[in-house]
């Protein structure tokens, strides 16, 4: 292995999603300016904009928090989590034009790479949990151990590179990595997995036990827990002793109370937003974008570099017609008209996804890599070459919900036109999971709710035994390339590995993709200063101008 220099480390840039790593960090306490990518605050640069304090900020989402113990949450991305908890490193959006991120100090004040397999982190002093207990190296180690050892932890993948954690002194920890890991810092920031790697109060966990902690969470975040009404709302209130300071020199957050509501019906959530009942909604459906844009009391906030990918399609690679028939898989991929799909279901904001999981900001992305643009003749020819000149009957499994139902109908029709006579099976979510797990399918598709922050995360979708590897891709060569990419600091070298990996996926036609819609939020005009960590709402600097 070539020698690893500090410069290499700084250069990491972790190209994916434009993350730039800052090895050296800003002075503490960190002071922030209240500007939002969506709402550039008036006033020349440098002039401290006026903020107003107080009020209750209300947010809504179409899902309910499965637990408030964020390590064990299958959706660790809601703003209640980022308000209750802090991560060691923050994943801040610094340029919303191109989607450039920087890793900034969170509970870790600074970090240094002592050698390729060792990271030393200086922790912020004087940070208190909401229960009054101290945040220190012991607590950080306990948290990192829990993320890796609890089998139900959703932060396991992100912290898997850590072998052991040493407490050097009360405010210094040393992470001993199993192998060099360019993804570990982004992983510790939570990245695309929200607050999964946040720090919880060990004292509270010891006192309450995991079951009660899940309902009475204690973190170091800007908001402390007040009330949970399951299936309705989480109510948080201002934590007076929060460590981060606002533009007015006082501690954050600006608002007194934060309410995260669960509104299952998106059209009702939209009415609530328009009538002022709530201030912000995550991920509005493409059909509502025009309504938001045309309403003078609302602001549309789009993050085009991220967002969910629909029609992420996989084939049964264990048994059935697709398993050993490359030409058949290629026929299926050629037969998908991604443009039409994006147009019909993306309502003007969708765009075709050329490659599965890779977009232009990712390492190794190269449009010279083999691709499968819509071509009915090629699809038919491939089907013939696959040994099915008269066509073939296949099934396509989809979870019964929108927009998947409509996408499934479009896809089935497109495939049938090419000669893959498709039986669309619309299944309730758990039935879909059950059949896919049992390999009782020919093909199936699902959605990827956001873009990976680091290319290493993609392993879960096609690495042998990956948690979301529904096709059960098991290709030792691909695993090796991903392993190499995941343990190489040199960005150029890393990109090479990922390019080869994408090439292999495409040549073998393991996976297909349909279209992507931008991550978006709709908010009321009076809500100012909102920021995101990755693409997830972070309300600590939000304030209400009313």
């Amino acid at each position, binding site marked *: 292995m070539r020698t690893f220099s500090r410069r290499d480390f700084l250069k990491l840039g972790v190209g994916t999603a434009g993350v730039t790593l800052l090895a050296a960090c800003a002075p503490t306490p960190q002071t922030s300016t209240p500007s939002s990518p969506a709402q550039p605050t008036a006033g020349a640069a440098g002039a401290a904009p006026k903020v107003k304090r107080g009020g209750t900020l209300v947010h809504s989402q179409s899902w*309910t928090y*499965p*637990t408030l113990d964020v390590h064990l949450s*299958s*959706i660790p991305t809601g703003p209640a989590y980022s308000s209750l908890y802090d991560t060691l490193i923050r994943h801040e959006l610094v340029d919303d034009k191109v989607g450039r991120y920087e890793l900034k100090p969170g509970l870790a004040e600074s970090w240094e790479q002592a050698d390729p397999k060792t990271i030393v982190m200086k922790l912020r002093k004087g940070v208190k949990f909401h229960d009054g207990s101290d945040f220190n190296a012991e607590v950080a180690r306990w948290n990192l151990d829990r993320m890796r050892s609890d*089998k*139900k932890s*959703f932060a*396991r993948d992100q912290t898997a590179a850590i072998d052991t954690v040493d407490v050097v002194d009360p405010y210094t920890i040393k992470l001993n990595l199993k192998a060099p890991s360019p993804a570990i810092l982004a992983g510790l920031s939570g990245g695309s997995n929200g607050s999964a790697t946040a720090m919880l109060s060990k004292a509270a966990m010891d006192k309450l036990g995991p*079951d009660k902690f*899940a*309902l009475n969470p204690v973190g170091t975040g800007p908001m402390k827990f007040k009330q949970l*009404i*399951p*299936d*309705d*709302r989480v109510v948080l209130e201002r934590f007076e002793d929060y460590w981060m300071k606002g533009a007015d020199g006082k501690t954050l957050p600006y608002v007194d109370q934060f309410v995260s*509501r*669960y*509104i*299952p*019906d998106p*059209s*009702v*959530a939209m*009415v*609530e937003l*328009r*009538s002022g*009942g709530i201030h912000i909604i995550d991920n509005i459906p493409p059909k509502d974008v025009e309504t938001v844009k045309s309403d003078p009391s609302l602001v549309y906030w789009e993050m085009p570099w991220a967002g969910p990918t629909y029609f992420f399609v996989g084939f049964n690679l264990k048994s059935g017609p697709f398993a050993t028939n490359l030409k058949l898989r290629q026929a299926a991929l050629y037969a998908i008209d991604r443009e039409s799909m994006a147009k019909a279901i993306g309502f003007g904001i969708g765009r075709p996804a050329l490659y599965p999981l890779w977009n232009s900001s990712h390492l190794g992305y190269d449009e010279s890599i083999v691709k499968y643009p819509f071509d009915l003749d090629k699809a038919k020819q491939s089907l013939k070459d696959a040994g099915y000149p008269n066509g073939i009957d296949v099934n396509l499994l989809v*979870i019964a919900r929108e927009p998947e139902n409509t996408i499934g109908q479009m896809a089935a029709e497109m495939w049938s036109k090419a000669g893959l006579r498709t039986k669309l099976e619309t299944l*309730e*979510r*758990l*039935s*879909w*999971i*059950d*059949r896919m*797990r049992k390999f009782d399918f020919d093909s199936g598709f*699902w959605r990827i*709710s956001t873009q990976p922050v680091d290319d290493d995360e993609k392993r879960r979708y096609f690495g042998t*035994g*990956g*948690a*979301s*590897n*529904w096709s*059960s891709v098991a290709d030792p060569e691909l695993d090796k390339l991903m392993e190499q990419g995941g343990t190489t600091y040199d960005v150029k070298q890393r990109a090479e590995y990922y390019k080869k990996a994408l090439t292999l996926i495409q040549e073998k036609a393991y996976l297909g993709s349909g279209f992507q819609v931008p991550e978006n939020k709709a908010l009321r005009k009076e809500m100012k200063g909102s920021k995101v960590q990755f693409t997830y709402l972070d309300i600590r600097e939000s304030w209400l101008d009313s």
Partner: protein
Amino acid sequence: MSRYFLRRAIQSIPVLLLITIITFAIVHLLPGDPALAYLGEAAAKDQVAYEAVRLELGLDQPLPVQYGKWLGKVVQGDMGRSVRTREPVTDGLSGRLPVTFQLALMAILFAVVIAVPVGILSAVRPGSRTDSVGTVFAISGVAVPHFWLGIILIYVFALWLRWLPASGYKSPTENLGANLQYMLLPALTLGAGQAAVIMRQVRSSLIEVLRNEYVRTARAKGLRERVVVQRHALKNAFIPVITIIGMQVGRLFGGAVVVESIFALPGLGRLAIDSIMFRDFAMLQGAILILAVAVVVLNLLTDVLYAYLDPRIKYA
């Protein structure tokens, strides 16, 4: 009468037990298990996590053992913990029951308040303009689905007029005024369909009663029509109406599922559906038991009302 009720109560125990067995069987016949629901489509291929969750939830044990363990705990007053929301089942139910109870009560109230006068007016003058309007109202009440009516009401009252909040819930103990504001539209939505059914029943039943000999006698005595209807006909016409209202309560819970979803109310109906989707057996059992008990009690209550309305009905 009290012996009759005692007997009915004892009879309902095997019914409830059977319901728990059927619920248990159905939940386990459905494909997938709570461990898969817990992990979701993003992580359900993670075998290590899957096995760990199954073990923790006791899903690795044979089904009769799982049921036996559950029943053993229930007998001791421990209904377990929800896999989906992590709360103790008793807390989950006690939090949601008042919501659905209030919703159902207000819906029935709305339905009766609207349906009875309209039904009477229609019955007294069958074929009149009032009758036609009432009939149109009734037919549309039955024909319009809850989700459509709910959304329309939200648009009108929350977005255009801004009189009422669009969705959500406030506890009546916290703020009764706000609570009523939140519950008004959901109760109207749920009550509309019921009102239609009840109105039609009042109408037909009253028309029938008004044809009876004793009504003719009352009229022949020279009583005013109002007295004839109110004193003589109405009470008798109400027996089938009470039956219908009693039967509607079961349907009401079905409607509550939809209405609670639209108006984002944390009620029992939505809890039951979410629990089914998650295969959250403990919570589902709790919810179904409560609904079953409610139906049993309401049937009893209907019987009591029969006896009140018709002195010929006696329970021994």
